[in-house]
C-alpha cells in the first residue's frame, strides 16, 4: 500500500514543475466556454428557469474533471513508451493495486485543480450556486472513474498513436452528449437511455441538481461508486496485460 505514494509523488512532482503552464491551460477552456456559450450565446436563453450560464457551469465541471482525470493517460504513455519509467514500477516490489491507486489519485488531483479553477472563474463572473460536500464527492467519483479508464486505456494500447483514437471516439463524444452543454431530455429516444446511464451524465445531472437546487439522489452517488470500483478493476486487470 505504501508504494502508491511513490507513483503519486512522481506525478505530483511533474505537475508541480509545470504548474504555471498547467494553470493556464486548465483555465483557457472554461474561459472560452463561459465566454462563448454562456455570455456570447446564452444571455437570453434560459433552461428550466435558470440562465444558460448557471446551467453550463456544473456541466463544464463534469466535462473538465472527466477530461483532466482521463488525461493521465498522456503522462503514462510517455512514461511507458518514451521514458520507459514504467519498467521501474514493474521491477519494483509494489503491487498493481498500489501503482494504479497512485496514478488514479494523481488524475483525481488534476481534476480537482481544474474544478477549482472553474469555480473561481465562475465566482468572478458572478454566477451563484450551491456547493456542499456531496458536490465534491461527485467530482471525486467522476474523476476516479475516468482516471481509472485513462490508466486502463494507456495499458491496453500498443503505441502512443492509438491513444488519440480512444480519446476521439469515446471521450470527446461523451463530453458533448453527457448532459454537459445541453439537457439530455431532447435526445432521440433510442440513444437517450444509453446516454443517461453514462457516468458523465450521472455526474453532470447530480452536480447541476446540487448547484442549482441544493438537492440530489443518493442512488446516483451509489451508481457512480459502483462504476468507479468496476473501472478501477478494469485498470488493475489491464496492468497485468501490459507486460510483454
Amino acid at each position: 500500500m505504501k508504494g502508491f505514494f511513490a507513483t503519486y509523488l512522481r506525478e505530483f512532482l511533474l505537475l508541480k514543475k509545470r504548474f504555471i503552464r498547467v494553470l493556464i491551460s486548465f483555465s483557457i477552456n472554461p474561459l472560452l466556454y463561459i465566454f462563448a456559450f454562456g455570455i456570447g450565446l446564452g444571455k437570453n436563453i434560459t433552461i428550466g428557469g435558470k440562465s444558460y450560464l448557471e446551467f453550463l457551469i456544473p456541466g463544464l465541471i463534469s466535462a473538465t474533471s472527466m477530461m483532466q482525470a482521463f488525461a493521465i493517460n498522456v503522462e503514462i504513455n510517455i512514461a511507458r513508451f518514451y521514458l520507459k519509467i514504467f519498467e521501474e514500477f514493474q521491477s519494483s516490489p509494489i503491487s498493481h493495486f498500489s501503482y494504479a491507486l497512485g496514478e488514479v489519485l494523481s488524475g483525481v488531483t488534476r481534476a480537482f485543480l481544474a474544478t477549482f479553477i472553474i469555480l473561481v472563474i465562475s465566482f468572478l463572473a458572478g454566477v451563484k450556486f450551491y456547493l456542499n460536500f456531496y458536490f465534491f464527492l461527485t467530482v471525486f467519483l467522476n474523476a476516479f472513474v475516468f482516471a481509472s479508464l485513462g490508466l486502463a486505456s494507456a495499458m491496453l494500447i500498443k503505441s502512443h498513436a492509438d491513444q488519440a483514437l480512444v480519446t476521439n471516439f469515446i471521450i470527446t463524444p461523451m463530453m458533448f452528449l453527457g448532459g454537459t452543454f445541453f439537457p439530455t431530455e431532447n435526445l432521440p429516444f433510442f440513444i437517450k437511455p444509453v446516454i443517461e446511464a453514462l457516468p458523465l451524465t450521472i455526474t453532470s445531472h447530480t452536480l447541476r441538481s446540487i448547484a442549482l437546487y441544493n438537492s440530489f439522489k443518493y442512488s446516483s452517488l451509489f451508481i457512480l461508486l459502483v462504476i468507479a470500483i468496476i473501472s478501477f478493476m478494469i485498470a488493475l486487470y489491464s496492468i497485468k496485460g501490459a507486460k510483454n
Partner: protein
Amino acid sequence: MSKIALKVENLVKKYSSVVALKGISFEIKKKELFALLGPNGAGKTTTIRIIAGLTNPTSGKIYLFGKSLYDNPIWSKSQIGIVPQHINLDMELTVEENLLIHGLLYKLSLSLIKKRISELLELADLKERKNSKIKELSGGLKRRVLIIRALMHKPKLLLLDEPTVGLDPHIRRKIWSFIKNIQANGTTILLTTHYMEEAEYLADRVAFIFSGEIKAINTPKDFIKQLGNYAVDVYLSDKLKTFYFKEKKEAEKELLKYSKNHFVSLRRVTLEDAFLKYVEKNL
C-alpha cells in the same frame, strides 16, 4: 547456507517470430560477478528482463537464494536491482527526486532514503548535481545516476545491462572501478556486455551466449589459457591471422618467420581471442 545466489534452469523465451532464448542454464555464486558476453541479439537483455520480472519466460525456472522467483515475486523484486540498457530516468525530475521515488517504490523509510541518497551521491561523485534535472546531465553522469538508483535499496543481486555502452574510455574505467567497489561490498552481480575488455577486467566468470544459447562458461583466465599465453597477429593481405602459443620462445620464432613479408605483432592472449574462436565455431 547455499553458496548459490541465482540459479537459472532451462530458460526459454519465444517471441512471435523469434526464439530469443533456447533453454539457457547457469548459476551465479554469492558475491560473484558473472558476465553474459555475446553479440547483438544474443539474448542478454531478454535474460536480464526475465530475472527482473519485466517479462515472463515461455518456460524455465529461476531460483533466487534458493527460492523460486515466481512463487515469491514481491520478495524477489525487493532483492534485485536493475540497471537497464536504456536510460529510463525521469528527465524532468532532479537527481534527488529520481532517487527519492525509487526509495519509496522499494518501501524505504524517509530517513533511510535521505541517508542513502547522500551516501550514494558521495560514492558516485554527484554531490553537486543533486538538484540538476536529469536532462541537464551528460551521458556518463546519467549512467552513474542509473547505477546508484539501482543501489538505493541495497539489492543483494544487481543486474547490469551494458552499463558502459556509449561512454568514453576514461568514464568507462571510472564505472568499472565503481562496479568493483559495489562487488567488494558484498553484492552479487550479473553483467551483460559486448565489450571483451570489460568482461575480462570485471568478471569472475563469463558465459558466451550466441543466438539464445550459452556455448561455454568459464573464468576469463581459463578461457585464455585454453588458447595459450601469447598471440602473434599476422596481417595478411586479405585478413588478419592469429596464432597462439604456450611459450614465448615459440611465439617469437613464428614472429620472425612472418616478419620479413608482413606486419606482425606479439601480444598476450585476451578474452577476445577466446570469444572469436567460439564465434568461428558457431558460424
